[in-house]
């Protein structure tokens, strides 16, 4: 493979991995805090892409303003799913399995509302030239996303880590995910903390979706399922409940997916299979994921 193509592929893998990493953090946070595998997370991802179409394409807001609104609105949607569905079930003592089913229901609901409003026909995601323009370093031609996406994700991760380790709400979030009852005894508002974690996870998914949309511009109501599924796998591979693990898992899957196709073009129609293979291999070797630890299943 020529050198410039290799560099391009590495960058592609990096960008894809970054998006998976952002989305997988949402899966890992909700699992960490209430042991919920949030099957609606991919729908939240998809929904944010439609929000972008509404605010940036249809209402023609400046892209940065539009995207800020999209991120905020998606965060609010995440909180709403928690408040209207999962929270109520938890309060009535529903087992985790019931809440998982509810998440599936929420997912179908969002998907179908989107189909009703926007139909199933593909729509164009509002791309931003500032992000998608191509530049050259010597012989290598790259899209700006190759630099901007990893930078954005790096900043977000540093911010998230700082938030979790050095701020009061962050400390509260870690306390609630480890021991909800003890957190209550500290005076932590557990419900608010859980809602907040949904806001963070959904907001990050929206950022992931916006970055994703710069590359894969066709938006249909099922647009979230593949990136959602792979991000979920990434979270599991990394060790679900662990944010660093989610990031490592996401990068790994993005990179492998791109590299396998780059080196074995004949296998490109199987590209989606590799992440599943990776999942199986990792789980066979280390059932708790790469840096996962055993967590007792919270009822």
């Amino acid at each position: 493979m020529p050198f410039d193509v290799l560099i391009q592929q590495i960058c592609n893998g990096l960008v894809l991995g970054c998006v998976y990493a952002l989305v997988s953090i949402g899966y890992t946070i909700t699992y960490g805090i209430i042991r919920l595998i949030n099957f609606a997370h991919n729908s939240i991802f998809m929904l944010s892409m439609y929000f972008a179409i509404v605010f940036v394409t249809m209402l023609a807001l400046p892209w940065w303003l539009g995207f800020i609104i999209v991120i905020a609105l998606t965060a609010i949607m995440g909180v709403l799913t928690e408040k209207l569905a999962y929270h109520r079930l938890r309060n009535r003592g529903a087992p985790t399995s019931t809440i998982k089913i509810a998440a599936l229901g929420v997912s179908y609901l969002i998907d179908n509302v989107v189909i009703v409003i926007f139909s199933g026909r593909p729509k164009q995601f509002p791309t931003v030239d500032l992000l998608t323009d191509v530049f050259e370093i010597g012989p290598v031609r790259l899209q700006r996303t190759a630099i901007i996406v990893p930078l954005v994700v790096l900043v977000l991760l540093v911010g998230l880590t700082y938030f979790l380790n050095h701020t009061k709400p962050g400390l509260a979030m870690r306390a609630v995910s480890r021991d909800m009852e003890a957190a209550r005894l500290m005076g932590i508002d557990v419900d608010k903390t859980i809602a907040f974690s949904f806001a963070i996870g959904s907001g990050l998914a929206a950022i992931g979706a916006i970055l994703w949309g710069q590359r894969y511009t066709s938006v249909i109501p099922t647009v979230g399922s593949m990136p959602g599924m792979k991000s979920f796998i990434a979270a599991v591979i990394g060790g679900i409940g662990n944010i660093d693990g989610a990031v490592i898992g996401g990068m790994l899957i993005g990179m492998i997916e791109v590299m396998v196709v780059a080196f074995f073009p004949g296998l490109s129609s199987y590209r989606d299979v590799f992440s599943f293979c990776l999942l199986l291999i990792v789980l066979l070797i280390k059932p708790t994921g790469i840096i996962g630890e055993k967590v007792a299943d919270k009822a």
Partner: protein
Amino acid sequence: MLEIKNLSVSYGGIKALKSISITVPDKKIVTLIGANGAGKSTTLRAIAKLIKHDSGTIIYNGEDITAISARETVQKGITLIPEGRHVFPDMTVLENLKLGAFLRTDNKAIKEDIDYMYELFPVLKERSTQLAGTLSGGEQQMLAVSRALMARPKMLMMDEPSLGLAPMLVKDIFTIIERVNREDGLPILLIEQNANFALKVADYGYVLETGTIQLEGTGEQLLENEKVKELYLGTGD
């Protein structure tokens, strides 16, 4: 003063507490003794609002606090050290202490209090950046006690603080309990398997049996009571 009146709690239809009444006067240590499953932890957990109760009232310094949340209970100054310590294992000792002061905003005083805790329990100072989960059981108990004190409670509830500790450490814990009670005038509601110890430090005690209060009296009275001696002190004739 904390007054519990006719408190009843049930778990899925099974009554765990049947209309019990308990009073914790200012500056006093009150203990709750009873066999396993008598309902001691249930009592404290209901007061801390970790579980819902069926009926009864909880009055704190003349104010009805029956309907408030767990968070508001902490805000009122009532702090529970739960059974089994429940320190946050994957956080450092220091982070655990900070979480104890979660509702406080007086950052300077919080720092001073952390230093005070390190004075009370020098071992915690040595371990300040160590993960709480790697502490020994006794050290974790000290952390649980100091984390609770970090809230600057106006009343402390302790659920078996000596559980699983070596006799030496049990003594230490009781020394601390007496010390914060005497020095800060902190009222304490104490559950203890070790009835002998508990009744000696307590001003007043209640004996709980399958969800009802069978006996009550001053620490001395209960220590002398034949039934208590037989059932809980193992010194009956």
